[in-house]
């Protein structure tokens, strides 16, 4: 939210934005065509994690709603999108035990509208859950939302005519194995979230986070703003879930357990509550590191020291890393700060001024 109007700087910022967009597009195009499917998969996962982390940051970091329901909304999005994009023939082979219910047995949609509807479905679910639950605060809210996420999983297990029960869905069209999809949606998430939090609406969200009582006395409608943040954040969680389903091509209720929410929470906290930049960058670091650390789980030895195969050792390492980050950077790596062109330009100006001072 800036008041100063400097047309030269505004133009410069526009040029820089367009330039970096063009560069990103070029990078995506190059990577899509040249990287091995293994690396592409990691980068796609990083993009999806960015969507999930930024959307959780909107809910938790900017609005202060400690919600642990992200995996639930991802499940809603993933199932919606999978059921809408699966070709008729696959549906017939998957739903052997119980026939697939209407409308999914009648329609097959292209990926884009299917992802949009996945976001919409998650948003509707967030609205329904949010209305009663968002009255709670702090830990209570965390527990209640966690409970709802588990309920969504249990329900998914028990409505075979829609979800195919515990067997889940296989052969989901893998359109999201494509950087344009994952990072395109990540860009959309960042764009919407940053526009929102930098608007007057966003100031009200921050006010709710800082002091509910004072915000309400100042005329901020608490329910409206909490629901607003929750629904938008969950919609993107639904989109992220849809893309993840398409990336891994098979989903079942177990896919959307609490660990999924927990991973995203790690990214959000490590990156910094209230920093979109932090969430995006930490998503990439986290995803890449998680892959890079895979070998330590399969057993290794340094000289006489022999470490046997320990599945899950990576998570131990991450817990330690998170601990260190919290110890040394209490507010996360980015501590609520954002990357902005204004920040970069101011920094350059300062450098230049200092040089001139030294020279003069």
């Amino acid at each position: 939210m800036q008041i100063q109007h400097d047309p030269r700087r505004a133009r410069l910022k526009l040029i820089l934005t367009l330039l970096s967009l063009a560069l990103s597009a070029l990078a995506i195009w190059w990577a899509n065509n040249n990287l091995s499917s293994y690396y592409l998969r990691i980068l796609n996962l990083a993009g999806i994690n960015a969507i999930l982390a930024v959307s959780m940051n909107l809910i938790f970091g900017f609005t202060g709603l400690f919600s642990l329901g992200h995996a639930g909304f991802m499940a809603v999005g993933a199932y919606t999108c999978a059921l809408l994009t699966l070709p008729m023939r696959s549906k017939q082979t998957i739903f052997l035990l119980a026939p697939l219910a209407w409308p999914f047995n009648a329609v097959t949609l292209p990926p884009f509208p299917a992802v949009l509807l996945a976001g919409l479905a998650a948003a509707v679910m967030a609205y329904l859950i949010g209305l009663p639950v968002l009255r709670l605060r702090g830990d209570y809210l965390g527990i209640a939302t966690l409970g709802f996420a588990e309920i969504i999983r249990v329900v998914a297990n028990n409505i075979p005519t829609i979800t195919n029960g515990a067997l889940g869905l296989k052969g989901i069209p893998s359109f999201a194995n494509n950087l344009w999809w994952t990072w395109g949606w990540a860009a959309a998430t960042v764009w919407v979230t940053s526009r929102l939090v930098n608007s007057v609406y966003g100031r009200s969200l921050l006010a709710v986070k800082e002091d509910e009582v004072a915000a309400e006395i100042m005329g901020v409608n608490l329910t409206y703003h909490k629901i607003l943040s929750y629904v938008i954040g969950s919609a993107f969680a639904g989109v992220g879930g849809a893309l993840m389903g398409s990336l891994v091509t098979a989903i079942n209720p177990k896919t959307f357990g609490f660990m999924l929410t927990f991973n995203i929470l790690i990214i959000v906290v490590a990156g910094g509550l209230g920093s979109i930049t932090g969430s995006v960058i930490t998503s990439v670091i986290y995803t890449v590191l998680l892959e890079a650390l895979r070998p330590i789980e399969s057993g290794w030895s340094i000289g006489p020291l022999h470490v046997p195969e320990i599945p899950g050792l990576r998570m131990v390492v991450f817990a330690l890393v998170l601990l260190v980050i919290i110890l040394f950077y209490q507010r996360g790596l980015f501590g609520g700060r954002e990357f902005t062109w204004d920040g970069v330009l101011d920094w350059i100006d300062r450098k230049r001024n200092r040089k001139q001072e030294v020279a003069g």
Partner: protein
Amino acid sequence: MSERSELSVQDLTMRFGGLTAVRDFSLELAKGELVGLIGPNGAGKTTVFNVITGVYRPTSGKVLLDGVDITGWRPDRVCKQGIARTFQNIRLMRSLSVLDNVIVGHRLRLKSSLGSAILRTPGYVREERELIQTSLELLDSLGLVHYKDVPAGGLPYGEQRRVEIARALATRPRVLLLDEPAAGMNPQESMDLCEFIQKVRRDFNLTVLLIEHDMSVVMGICERIAVLDHGETIASGVPAEIQANQRVIEAYLGVGYKNVAAN
């Protein structure tokens, strides 16, 4: 019937479980009046504010603003209707800048939709610019504009009190409730604050209800005073009457008060 009160509190009773914090409290504020609410610790003063602003729903009794019954309304609706307040323990959004704090106070008049805010339509951009401009003017008129980018929590105590008043004014209230604005201030700061309150009342055409323990402030600027003790109204009247009231002296001012006040 006589002229309608700006703020009218009628037979207000507030019980917390077995504790009656306020009993049968009534108060009429005419438009433009500055009235003091005093009493010993735990008398129920802040509770009266909390009921007026909708934080608590009263056990019984009514609150009317310019004739509109606002009893039990949600705080944000009470605010929209025209009552703003400050808190005994300052409640600014500490990590938000002073300007952002004031902008939040303007929020309730924002007309642009969420969609237009995200898309930054020309209409939204214009409204946001006007809103920031108005906020800056408000800060300027109160001599606070040089703090605009400072996180509110980083300001000196006395300045935080002023910013909190500025934020309340941003909601464009008809009635302003101040809960111990001079708490923790030295005599000089208290005097400055008195002037500040008087000026704000004039400039913004306000009706003010003031809770305060600092008797120099209360006696100095209040036109009328109501005294609470253990939730009961034990006296009300002009400052001179209150100062002379035997019950008030016993319950609150203390026997030595007159001598102190004479100094």
